[in-house]
């Protein structure tokens, strides 16, 4: 018996702070479970802000001089700290019953392969990191996500010398009972407002002629990524109106309170 794959639904959200983005992404996972469909939320950050991985040490971020003065939030997903503000966050929620939810690497690879293809369409020679070279993620790796490498990360080799394996997209997941939530961070341009040790060049810095890269200049690359992601899942893309808002506003507020609280942000 064949079934028609459900389309991939996407919301293009207005900029928000870290706790709000995290609460909405957790609600997105609940919604994916309820609908039995893959959902995507594309979001940006209203201010420069650091998000820690679920188990990173808060003290390590506070002690990092390059991050001095930035607000800190914490994601439910794993991985390294990200300096937001010049990136775009790609939240993908996949219901547990979906084939893509069975393996962490499968979802990671599917989303990243679609981005490699979308970038290739702009002449950017991106690829997924093989995990065999130096820089592989040690168990307690560098503080910052973009200083880490793990198998499947999207890296580019820029034309300038010494710019091989430059990471421009990394992802991490929270595997919940009803759905898997994957957070991806695509670095559009260098994150200003931080010290050099925490600054990483993005697509606009490495491939200026292949742009425009700013979200305000259009959704081109991300629209292409969504189309390719949907195609790989066997369906199409449905653009949802407005920003993502769950129907249970009280539950969202409760989740938001948790993500804003010190008990969560400074949990480790």
């Amino acid at each position, binding site marked *: 018996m064949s079934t028609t794959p459900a389309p991939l639904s996407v919301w293009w959200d207005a900029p928000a702070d870290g706790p709000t983005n995290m609460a909405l992404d957790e609600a997105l996972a609940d919604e994916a479970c309820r609908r039995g469909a893959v959902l995507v939320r594309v979001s940006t950050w209203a201010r420069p802000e650091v998000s820690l*991985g*679920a*188990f990173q040490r808060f003290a390590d971020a506070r002690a990092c001089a390059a991050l001095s003065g930035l607000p800190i939030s914490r994601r*439910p*997903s*794993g*991985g390294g700290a990200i300096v937001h503000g010049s990136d775009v966050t790609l939240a993908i929620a996949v219901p547990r019953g979906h084939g893509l939810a*069975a*393996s*962490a*690497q499968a979802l*990671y690879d599917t989303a990243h392969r679609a981005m490699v293809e979308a970038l290739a369409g702009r002449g950017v020679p991106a690829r997924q990191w093989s995990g065999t070279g130096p820089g592989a*993620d040690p*168990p*307690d790796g560098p503080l910052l996500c973009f200083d880490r490498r*793990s198998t499947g990360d999207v890296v580019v080799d820029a034309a300038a010398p010494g710019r091989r394996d430059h990471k421009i997209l990394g*992802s*991490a*997941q*929270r*595997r*919940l*009972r009803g759905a*898997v939530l994957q957070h991806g961070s695509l670095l559009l341009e260098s994150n200003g407002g931080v010290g050099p040790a925490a600054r990483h060049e993005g697509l606009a810095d490495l491939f200026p002629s292949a742009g425009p890269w700013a979200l305000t200049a259009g959704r081109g690359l991300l629209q292409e990524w969504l189309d390719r992601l949907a195609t790989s899942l066997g369906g199409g893309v449905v653009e949802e109106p407005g920003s993502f808002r769950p129907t249970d506003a009280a539950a969202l507020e409760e989740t938001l309170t948790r993500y804003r609280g010190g008990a969560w942000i400074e949990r480790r």
Partner: protein
Amino acid sequence: MAGDLRFAKSHEWIRAEHGGVATVGISAYAVEALTDLVFMQLPTVGRRVKAGESIGEIESVKAVSDIYAPVSGEIVEVNASLPERLETLGRDPFGDGWLVRIRPDDPAEMAGLLDQAAYDALVGGQRH
């Protein structure tokens, strides 16, 4: 040994022990799927939990997963050294890699979980 195990769909196993206590762990399939474990957080002794409630978290290089209580009850013992030797989970998930011991509120609740054959069928479907 595997015959006396019961499984939750979220891949925790539970085994009744003497004295009204049950041991809880996560299945070999789940450990294999997680890969490259880096951190684990377990609950405190004395905590009361409901079936399906998160009792801990485990992080691999790419993902954080919740560990759920397969039955309701009280946590009476925790494998406190496990987070410092996560390789044990891969080597012996049904033995030394146990996570917690729980005193079930209702031991009969375990009968509602999957037996070995049903769990094998579940993960067999997820492998394909």
